[in-house]
């Protein structure tokens, strides 16, 4: 067991080797993604793929973990900020940077073991989940918003796992056709984001990921939806999901994996 990970030896005798062998793709390196990257570097994940085309700006500084004012003033790539933070914690971590839209990195993403989705639109979330399901990649998604609840604002969010073969985000009601059509997320405008809520959600997501890859605890469910109430400061399993648990996901049939035939043969040439 590595000295740096001795305090998490309860994860298993060879958990440091297991974690070192895992490849995690973090798509979206904003408020949630930057938290996730930092934690994954602490935990001992061996390889991380950092995907985000965006650059830091001053309005990110309230939540972008690892970013400095200088980074924002100079519009540093979010991939560079996240990579620097990760390597500072764990210089042995294999960090690959993709300052691109994730749709332009699918060849690399297929080699990941888990995708952590920290994207900021229903459309992106939906596409990324579809990609993850097709290539048998568990997808852990983080979402946060602020609603105008008449006389006060309400912070809400979720951590959801879309596990191939189990319920998907559509089954769990996180993505609907209405959402995709309207593409509205939150009532407060300008997609409000705060560091403490992102931190809660990112921490839970990392905990779910570690549980998935090490044998320290066997949870009862593979697909998962945890709802965050940022006013009551709670994060709890969504009870409504249990009503659909056990049914076959109609959105991602089990046979729809791998490249569709015309796209596989088209790529051969």
């Amino acid at each position, binding site marked *: 067991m590595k000295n740096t990970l001795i305090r998490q030896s309860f994860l298993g005798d060879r958990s440091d080797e297991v974690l070192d062998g895992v490849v995690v793709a973090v798509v979206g390196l904003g408020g949630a993604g930057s938290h996730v990257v930092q934690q994954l570097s602490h935990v001992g994940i061996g390889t991380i793929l950092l995907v985000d085309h965006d650059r830091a700006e001053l309005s990110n500084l309230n939540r972008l973990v690892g970013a400095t004012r200088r980074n924002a003033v100079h519009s540093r790539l979010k991939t560079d900020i996240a990579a620097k933070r990760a390597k500072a914690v764990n210089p042995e971590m294999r960090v690959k940077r993709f300052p691109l*839209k*994730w*749709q*332009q990195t*699918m060849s690399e993403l*297929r080699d990941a073991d888990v995708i952590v989705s920290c994207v900021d639109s229903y*459309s992106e979330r*939906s*596409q*990324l*989940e*579809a*990609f993850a*399901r*097709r*290539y048998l990649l568990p997808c852990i998604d983080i979402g946060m918003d602020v609603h105008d609840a008449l006389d006060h604002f309400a912070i809400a969010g979720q951590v959801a796992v879309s596990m191939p073969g189990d319920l998907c985000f*559509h089954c769990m009601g996180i993505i609907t*056709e209405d959402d*995709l*059509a309207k593409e509205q997320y939150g009532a407060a405008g300008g997609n409000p984001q705060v560091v403490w809520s992102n931190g809660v959600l990112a921490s839970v997501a990392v905990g779910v990921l570690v549980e998935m890859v090490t044998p320290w605890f066997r949870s009862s469910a593979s697909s998962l939806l945890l709802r965050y109430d940022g006013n009551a400061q709670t994060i709890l399993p969504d009870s409504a999901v249990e009503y659909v648990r056990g049914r076959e996901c*109609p*959105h*991602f*049939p089990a046979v*729809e994996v791998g*490249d*569709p*035939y*015309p*796209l596989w043969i*088209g*790529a051969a040439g």
Partner: protein
Amino acid sequence: MPEVLDLTGLDAISSGVSTFADAGQRYVHVPTLRLPQGCTRDVLATLVCMDTRDGYPTRLFFSEQFSTTARALNWTAPVAIGGQTWYAFSWKDVPSSTRPVEVLIGHLAALLP
């Protein structure tokens, strides 16, 4: 929603036309679509989405972006379908049909003066 797609007419446009499903939506893959004159690309692979997507009744996706003398095209961000990257431009609603060739022609009207 139409259950069976009639691919008649597409073989005159391209060889190797086939269909597949992705995330609950039906796509017709047209591997070699010759674009109208005035386009900066001659031949591209395309996908005709026969089901409602992103608020549109149908959509036409291309393997690459291009421009045309017919009008300025407003390209959307790249989209992942079937594990590959595709591009679409904003165009009027083209209703769905049992005949993908009708949908394809409806979308290609954007490339004509």
